[in-house]
């Protein structure tokens, strides 16, 4: 036990062991006191030492979280990039009309369930609220469909009555198209909309995520915009194959478009989440490292000061005895 106590004190007092052997037992019972001649006052480095231990373990944890996020990102990035071709045909056909003027807007906000991923969830919520404000008017109504725990928590604070559906635990199982199409079906059945606006973070690179809004119009709106001209103006020039009426095909098309765009959006958001978590954990480990450096310096200084104090006391005591 004496050896353990010595190790704990950092092997500093090796030259002083001989006179101190009697007191090592006592000091091991009172761990807050330094190993020193009995009756001496010492400065405690225990507080700093505890702090250093906890900061070191936090650094290890954040490093591990970064590795985990990096490996998850690798896996899901492949899927997201493969799904990027999915929404492009719809935009090529129906164009992109984010500034369309509709009465019933439904804002689908996609966010993560877990935290510690930087600012992407706040960005999505800010963009959704801004969209709400942009589309507010006398007879216009805006509703939210929330995917993910983090956005739900933030939106429920001031827009509780506007949230129609909230879905959590999306990533419990690996994301696939079937799951997202069931979700899309749910939304389409239960929510009335003229335009659906999907707010998500598009994964641009590991350090850059762009908030994006994808717009899906209901079949009636598509017809209205086609008649009005503009981007959908040449929709009438397309012949419709199959089905009895044009509106039936447009309805199927709208539903399919929504599920495809949702699938891509959910994958991109998941990628952004992992990327943001990687950079958040990386900066956290770096901060912990810096903190550890500062604490080590302060620890060494305290330790050296206490050694110096003890030496002074011993020497002055010895010189008082001799001369």
């Amino acid at each position, binding site marked *: 036990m004496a050896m353990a106590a010595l190790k704990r004190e950092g092997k500093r007092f090796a030259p002083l062991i001989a006179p101190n052997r009697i007191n090592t037992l006592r000091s091991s019972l009172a761990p807050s006191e330094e190993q020193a001649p009995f009756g001496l006052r010492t400065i405690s480095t225990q507080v700093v030492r505890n702090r250093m231990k906890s900061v070191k373990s936090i650094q290890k944890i954040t490093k591990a979280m970064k590795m985990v996020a990096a490996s998850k990102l690798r896996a899901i990035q492949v*899927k997201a*990039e*493969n*799904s*990027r*071709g*999915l*929404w*492009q*045909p*719809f*935009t*090529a*056909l129906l*164009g*992109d*009309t*984010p*500034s369309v003027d509709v009465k019933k807007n439904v804002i689908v906000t996609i966010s993560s369930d877990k935290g510690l991923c930087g600012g992407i969830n706040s960005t999505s919520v*800010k*963009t959704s609220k*801004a969209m709400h*404000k*942009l589309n507010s008017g006398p007879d216009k109504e805006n509703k939210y469909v929330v995917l993910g725990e983090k956005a739900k928590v933030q939106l429920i604070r001031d827009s509780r009555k506007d949230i129609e559906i909230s879905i959590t635990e999306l990533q419990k199982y690996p994301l*696939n*198209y079937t799951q997202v199409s069931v979700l899309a079906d749910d939304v389409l059945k239960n929510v009335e909309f003229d335009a659906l606006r999907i*707010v998500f973070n*598009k*994964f*641009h*690179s*590991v350090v*850059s995520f*762009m*908030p*994006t*809004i*994808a*717009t899906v119009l209901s079949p009636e709106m598509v017809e209205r915009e086609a008649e009005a001209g503009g*981007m959908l103006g*040449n929709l009438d*020039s*397309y*012949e*419709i*194959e*199959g*089905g009895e009426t044009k509106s039936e*095909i447009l309805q*199927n*098309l709208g539903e*399919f478009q929504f599920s*495809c*765009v949702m*699938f891509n959006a959910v994958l991109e958001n998941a990628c952004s989440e992992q990327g943001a978590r990687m950079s958040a954990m990386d900066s956290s480990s770096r901060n912990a490292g810096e903190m550890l450096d500062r604490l080590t310096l302060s620890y060494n200084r305290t330790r050296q000061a206490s050694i110096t104090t003890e030496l002074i006391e011993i020497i002055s005591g010895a010189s008082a005895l001799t001369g």
Partner: protein
Amino acid sequence: MFRHLTTRILSRPTTVTAARARPFSTDVAAAPAADEAFAEAWKKVIPNIDPPKTPLHFMTPRPSTPSSIPTKLTVNFVLPYASELSAKEVDMVIIPATTGQMGVLPGHVATIAELKPGVMSVHEGNDVTKYFVSSGFAFIHANSYADVIAVEAVPIDQIDPSQVQKGLADFTQKLSSASTDLEKAEAQIGVDVHSALNSALTG
């Protein structure tokens, strides 16, 4: 001395952005003027936040309709988990529309077609690649671009005939014993898909 520094700092960003036109991602950044109305409206109401991007930003714009019929058809065949064919130039595609097999050649009239389970074949010179698609949509644009979006597609040679027969038998039996409308609809879909698979393998 400080004026030199500031001029150098000010001139640096422009050269850096020009060189950084294609950053780390695999996306192509094209920003057409189409949704400027949105950006304008946004800036008026919410001046603090940058307007978010929209899908048009991330898409390369399609070429406009040429005056003469092009020789090749450009096909994009996409699935949720992969892009099977992207901007591939072919001679002809035959797609299984709900009204029957439809052949698409360059210069085909612009069409939106809903697809039923069936065989899609891509003809390029003398090679023909056949896929069994589950269902989806096909858009044929006036500029000889064809977009086929399917939920699931497999090349024909990867289908197991014995499984198809077994599936067909299962679903026919389910259809006859179905009680609710939902069960009937599900069993009917199963029968349709499996009989299409069957005819794809044989025909």
